[in-house]
């Protein structure tokens, strides 16, 4: 897929590095420029064997060399490596790379065909260009947290998972792949500018559409959905929660039959999704009472048998043991320098990848210095761009 493409990860924390890891899964040769005291991810959060587990998951599929871009000799070495690269990815605050002398214009001088992706917090100009940005702050600043939460709350932050960071990483991958495609057609590299703010807004387009249409803010609704009824959690007899969604009309008669309430199916108040949204307050208590009458396990068996969308609320232990995840070998155990640990595999399945898509474990900082130096000192350089 991306075999033969060399990507320099000169980013920090999660956003830029994770994007590079994913392109590493797709076959790119990713070289990580590690700062001399290691990246912040090395130290925060839950540790394993003395390294942050976030570092393990933010730096797999990479080769690693310590480069201190603040020192001129290291910067020169960095530029030398950049001569052999196709892509540079960075996600430092606006202006930081210019200060270090490793910005697009500088790299372009040594490698005119470079694709340089700069992902900032809020863009490089404007009143918020220098506002601090990270996953929790962006959840709040973008409205992401404001649409999430129990009914009546003023919003709720999604804890620990960093889905906003990850989504920004995915946006970086999209942009770099587009630029690689463009380079195959024009022979030219280019600069890409993007930001966590833009990625996070773009990701919320379906909810923002409600606001644009009505001028009203979507409010937190617990587990429920403003435009699909039912689609929410229900408490079961054994005090657990399951969820049930009727997001296509064909599921409604199936649900009514499964819960043995054919009268609901024929009730004009609930005939279509639009009717059910209008009469939500009449319908939901009926379903709540019914579903509270049997345990979770029974409903899951029955609804799956009946073709009704339903689900359980899984913990990490549930996920480790999930038969579907096991059948797909979606969690892989790999040996790292800090001991064995679990990674998730690349989620997309390709029928014909030129090399198997795989996750290779994180290596220690500077592990690959010698081989990288040897590679760039070879006289022949990789041909860039077209031809």
């Amino acid at each position, binding site marked *: 897929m991306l075999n033969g493409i060399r990507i320099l990860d000169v980013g920090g924390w999660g956003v830029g590095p994770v994007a590079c890891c994913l392109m590493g899964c797709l076959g790119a040769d990713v070289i990580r420029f590690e700062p001399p005291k290691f990246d912040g991810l090395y130290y925060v959060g839950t540790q394993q064997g003395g390294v942050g587990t976030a570092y393990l998951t933010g730096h797999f599929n990479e080769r690693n060399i310590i480069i201190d871009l603040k020192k001129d000799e290291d910067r020169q070495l960095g530029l030398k490596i950049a001569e052999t690269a196709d892509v540079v990815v960075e996600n430092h605050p606006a202006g930081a790379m210019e200060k270090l002398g490793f910005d697009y214009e500088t790299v372009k001088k040594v490698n005119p065909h470079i694709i340089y992706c700069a992902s900032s917090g809020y863009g490089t100009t404007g009143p918020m260009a220098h506002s601090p940005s990270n996953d929790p702050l962006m959840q709040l600043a973008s*409205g992401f947290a404001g649409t999430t939460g129990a009914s009546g709350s*003023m919003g709720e932050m999604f804890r620990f998972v960093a*889905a906003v960071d990850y989504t920004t990483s995915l*946006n970086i991958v999209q942009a770099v792949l*587009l630029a690689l495609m463009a380079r195959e057609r024009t022979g030219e590299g280019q600069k890409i500018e993007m930001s966590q703010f833009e990625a996070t807004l773009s990701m919320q387009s379906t909810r923002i559409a409600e606001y644009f249409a009505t001028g009203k803010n979507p409010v937190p609704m617990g587990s429920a959905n403003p435009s699909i009824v039912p689609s929410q959690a229900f*408490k079961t007899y054994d005090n657990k929660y399951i*969820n049930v969604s009727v997001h296509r009309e064909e599921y409604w008669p199936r649900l009514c039959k499964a819960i043995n309430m054919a009268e609901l199916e024929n009730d004009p108040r609930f005939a279509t999704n*639009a009717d059910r949204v209008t009469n939500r307050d009449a319908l939901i208590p009926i379903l709540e009472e019914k579903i509270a009458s049997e345990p979770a396990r029974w409903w899951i068996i029955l609804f799956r048998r009946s073709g009704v969308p339903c689900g359980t609320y899984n913990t990490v232990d549930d996920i480790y043991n999930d038969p579907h995840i096991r059948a797909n070998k979606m969690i892989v155990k790999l040996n790292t320098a800090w001991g064995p640990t679990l990674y998730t595999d690349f989620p997309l399945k390709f029928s014909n990848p030129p090399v198997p898509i795989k996750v290779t474990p994180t290596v220690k900082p500077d592990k690959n210095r010698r081989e990288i130096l040897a590679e760039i000192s070879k006289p022949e350089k990789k041909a860039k761009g077209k031809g």
Partner: protein
Amino acid sequence: MVPLKDIKVLELADEIAGPHCGMQLSDGGADVIKVEPLTGDLSRHRGVKINGESALFLSLNRGKRSIALSQAEPGGREIVLRLAKDADVILENYGPGRADELGFGYSDIAKSNPRVVYCSISPFGEKGPYRDYPASELEIQGMAGYQWFLGEAGEPPVRLGPDLAGVDTGIWSFIGIMAALLSRNKSGVGQKIESSMFMNMLAMIVYIITAHYNPDQPGGFHFTGPFDHAETGYRTKDRAILFGMPLVPGKTEPAWESFCKQVGLAELLEDPYFKEKGMRMVGIGRDAQEFKPVIEPAMENWTSDEIRKIVEGLGGYFAMFKTYQDVFNEPQVKEVRMIEEIDHPVAKKIKVMGIPWKLKATPAQIKGPPPLLGQHTAEILREIGYSREEITAFRKSKIINEEID
């Protein structure tokens, strides 16, 4: 020059994930043909409307052309096959095996079009015991463990408000398609990609999978889950907020003292436990939760902006739970061109999200408004060689709709 010039995409997908992917391919420059049933994409009928047009549909389908046809009829299926013959990309979400039953699964198409990149989107993928289970955004979030990190222990589950599984599955699919197109440039052949909402969402919690496997310590503020409280910030008069003092040696303590005095919490500085722990709070996590009953009542005497001024004056950081109205009043949204206006024939002037990636030399561009149902049926049929008579015959036999005026 747009990056995906001359790439032809056939979108046989409804709801969120597939259309989001198709829309982004269109922004990238591809010619996206949306094949809809005669009743239209499901999302045309869902949620709030603008002059009768669904806001959800409008947000996911700009820059595409729409052909509406009945796939129940052999004639309709023949049209799809003819469209597929020279498609570069086919995107479908019919469910595992369903496209094969209709005669346009990957193996059917690839026989005459080996260059095709064929992306199948499904809830759980095409292998494993959940393969045929239907599921929506809500089910996927729950099964991928996301609710473990939302809500209060013992209280009803809370979902993420945004459609993360749907939209991000669209983004993942886009990545798969682009990787396969780049690969095709070298190999000359396409391939099939399976993109499942469950696997994609699972990959995005890799950090949780790793952190809980063999950690050095029980804590590290990430090692939690259902034992935590909801991170709802502190309520003020208007919005919920979070804040923290500057975590710079020598600055934290005086800042905290000044803050407490200014907001009416001075008496709490007498308590060494509160003072020591309070000044190091970062607005989230167990410490912030522990002090919530103490701090929140004081905050409720102030507006979020008053607290912001106090905290920022002390060099600390502040954030509030913004509504979309707050977000779209920020000049920064215009600065980064994240609101675009398009003219739609029925909904008139509509606002849509801009394009998040700014490629300086070959910019992505919004190609046009979202299509009306079947707006381009005749045009597309003519392009693939159907005569006027054949098109009229399709109308008569209800394979396609009557012409739109």
